[in-house]
């Protein structure tokens, strides 16, 4: 489904990604781990099409089609979803209104009429129950005054609403207590299917106890230096990242 080929990206002339190769198939869960500053969040942003980063070489394919020239919204329309590490606040725009706009804009791009209000309400009810979200929460301004946990839960709620093909969860576990983590992870697990794929970006192994990956990749210094199965994540948890750094230095 997702294929990344020799991807190089830089910001303000400074190279951050230095040749990423990655293939994610439908129905798979991949975890990308690595020490701070290794380029994990940059990779997520570049896949989503953030123009702050300049792609200097390589390409990204979604279902065999290069999305390199796609705008961020076109990528979203094609099923790419990014759960942000730091979701932004939009004062005065309710979660419901934001979701309504997002869904209808995607439909418009596909030439489909706006979703009828009745269906929208039903969808919202369904998905908020799935993520144990209080309905009052949905009329609050987007992320304004939300706790860290609420922000992340809201990200996953949006993922549930938009039903993406490819979901990238960037440090979704940071700032979550154990209960919130479980709710979020349960949500993601319920949304998983044989047709979609999930890329989990995390620093710690903790989240992977709940969202069990099929593959684990270690990103260091802009490159994937090691790939394996979930056991690799356990090893990292035990030994830290130093041995990876040493291996990479050799």
């Amino acid at each position, binding site marked *: 489904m997702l294929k990344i080929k020799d991807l190089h990206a830089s910001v303000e002339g400074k190279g951050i990604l230095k040749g990423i190769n990655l293939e994610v198939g439908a129905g798979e869960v991949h975890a990308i781990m690595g020490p701070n500053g290794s380029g994990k969040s940059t990779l997520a942003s570049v896949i*989503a*099409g*953030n*123009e*702050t980063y300049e792609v200097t070489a390589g390409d990204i394919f979604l279902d065999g089609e290069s999305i390199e020239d796609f*705008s*961020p*919204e076109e*990528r*979203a*329309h094609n099923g*790419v*979803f*990014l759960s*942000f590490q730091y*979701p*932004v606040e*939009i*004062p*005065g*725009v309710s979660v419901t*209104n*934001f979701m309504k*706009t*997002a*869904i209808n*804009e*995607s439909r418009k*791009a596909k030439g489909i009429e706006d979703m009828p209000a009745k269906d929208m309400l039903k969808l919202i009810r369904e998905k908020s129950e799935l993520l144990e979200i209080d309905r009052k929460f949905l009329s609050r*301004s*987007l992320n304004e005054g939300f706790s860290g946990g609420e922000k992340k839960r809201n990200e996953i709620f*949006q993922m549930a609403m*938009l039903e993406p093909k490819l979901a990238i969860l960037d440090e979704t576990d940071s700032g979550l207590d154990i209960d919130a983590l479980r709710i979020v992870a349960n949500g993601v697990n319920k949304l998983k299917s044989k047709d979609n794929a999930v890329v989990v970006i995390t620093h710690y192994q903790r989240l992977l106890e709940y969202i069990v990956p099929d593959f684990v990749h270690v990103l260091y210094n802009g490159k994937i230096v090691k790939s394996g199965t979930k056991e690799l994540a356990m090893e990292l948890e035990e030994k830290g990242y130093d041995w990876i750094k040493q291996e990479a230095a050799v």
Partner: protein
Amino acid sequence: MAYTEQELKKELETKEYEYGFYTDIESDTFPIGLSEEIVIAISKKKNEPKWMTDWRVEAYRVWEKMKEPEWANVRYQKPDFQAISYYSAPKKADPNKKLEDVDPELLEMYKKLGISIDEQKKLQNVAVDIVVDSVSVATTFKKTLAEKGIIFMPISEAIQEYPELVRKYMGTVVPTTDNFYAALNSAVFTDGSFCYIPKGVRCPMELSTYFRINQAGTGQFERTLVVADEGSYVSYLEGCTAPSRDENQLHAAVVELIAMDDAEIKYSTVQNWFPGNKEGKGGVYNFVTKRAICEKNAKVSWTQVETGSAVTWKYPSCILKGDNSIGEFYSIAVTNNYQQADTGTKMIHLGKNTRSTIISKGISAGKSQNSYRGLVQVSSRADNARNFSQCDSLLMGNECGAHTFPYIEAKNKSAMIEHEATTSKIGEDQIFYCNQRGIDTEKAIALIVNGFSKEVLNKLPMEFAVEAQKLLEISLEGSVG
């Protein structure tokens, strides 16, 4: 077509030669220039009683000695007041003009705003062929009002039909001597609206809802007087969301509101005069004086959405004269390209237990400058006066400016005055967040701006709010590259 000042001048110059100074005052357009004779001629043309003529002349004499104010944070080339014609007969619909003849760009904008074909035709001076509907609506409307004793008519008619009422109240809130533009307006105003709500009557409809378009052509020196007698209520809508490409460059209106004991007036404005083109050429100068007086337990709410005009100078104010009276000001001012706005309010607390609320939202884009200027004044005998002010500015891009000039004068120790101000910028991270959810940049900006303005938009009557929301989107279209 955008009209530059040079072009206007040139045209007026040639007109002067065409007509000379003392031409027949019966003609539909007066010669350019302003003098006592012209003022008298306007009054005569309108068949006004002597007191009205005298009032105008007095205003003219005051104006003559006044100087155009320069304290506002706006820069523009001052209009040449002797190069303007101060009277022209209302335009009649051109029977040969069809909607197809109208600038398609303008029609596209109407479509976006959801303005009906009939209304579009009226706006463009196209004869309306299906008049039956609107006439019958207007008739029913007038009948309902008459049954309640409500007077709602052009001020020129009111001067003829209800001279005592008009004479009693006109100039009591905004005196002729108030300021340069108010004096000018008093001398030369051509028309406007008069509204009187009798004691204890609650006006059953939003006034001017149906007359919105009819009133759009009332011209550059509009005069409005709303009197709400004891215990009455009225909601009044002014302006039009449709883009008005008036060829008059200078607009100097005066609005006076009188809320007697226990009365309430809601006054909502949407202003969308031509703002000039992208290079800052042309556009309307909008210099407006709006003020309300509140007697005991009375309440006045000003709500405004200002998106048009090249230069805006406007401070809808409340004199809270009676004890327990309430003044509110809710404002959204949008400036784009080279627009300049200096707008805000004055809350003058004279009575005891008077309260005022100010919510001002300024949105600046392009190379525009947007200033909030507000005065909260508490007099020595206004015990327990309270004010809450909130001024938020939203910036788009790096070349625009937002300014806040809050003035506070409190002469009573029991006064409680709160002022909050924020300035924020639409961030790339906000836009990217929306983009990532499938919302393109234009739509994202509209969403963010609407969220920012929500507190004020919510104060507008429902149908107006929907149009105003669309108007905000259109005004800011293309403002982020």
